[in-house]
């Protein structure tokens, strides 16, 4: 297996884990969904700053640079 294929397989596996976590959260309510987890992270001012900076960095990185 090439490095490229192995890397893509890991990325797909991580995406599937994320989808699985969200599915478990929706189905059982025993876990926080991604929205609830992000919302909880953004509740205290320091967490809000981190999420806001992450949002700004993401946009600048993907669309401007």
């Amino acid at each position, binding site marked *: 297996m*090439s*490095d*490229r294929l192995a*890397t*893509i397989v*890991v*990325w797909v596996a*991580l995406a599937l*884990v*994320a989808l699985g*976590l969200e599915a478990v959260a929706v189905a059982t309510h025993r*876990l*926080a969904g*991604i*929205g*609830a*987890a992000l*919302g*909880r*992270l*953004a*509740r205290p001012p320091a967490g*809000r700053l981190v*999420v*806001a900076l992450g*949002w*700004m960095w*993401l*946009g*600048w*990185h*993907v*669309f*401007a*640079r």
Partner: protein
Amino acid sequence: MRNKSALFSAARPAPTGAARRTIEHNARVRRRLGLVGFGGALAVGASFTTPFTTGAEIATALAIGAFLAAELVAARRRPRAPREAPPRWRAGAAWGALGGTVLAFELWNYFAGPRAAHPTLSYFLSAVAGQPWSRGIMFAAWLALGGWLVSR
């Protein structure tokens, strides 16, 4: 001499109850429609730009500026939340672990290189954002995420 606004307010008493709620609701709807229109126009504009150009930087900077302005306004209106009991650790721990794994794998790929053999998330995102229509959709989704953050 009474000024014009005093005469106006004397002739028409301030709305109360349901009328006041309707006026506030309509103002909120107008504000939201304005924001959605601004965001849509920005996303369409951004869809025709390419990275490392002034146009792309201006479109992204406008979005970030609007986000910061909206966040400042929202922060003033947001009621101070009462101190709550800390959440159960497992509720968000799974996402924290996944986020940490993604970050570690991203950094490992970034430094391992070459990019073709070790693609990063940015590599995939740049490929997806290569077409104007997909770039516009991604820009709109990014704006929606920022709007969601401001509204919380």
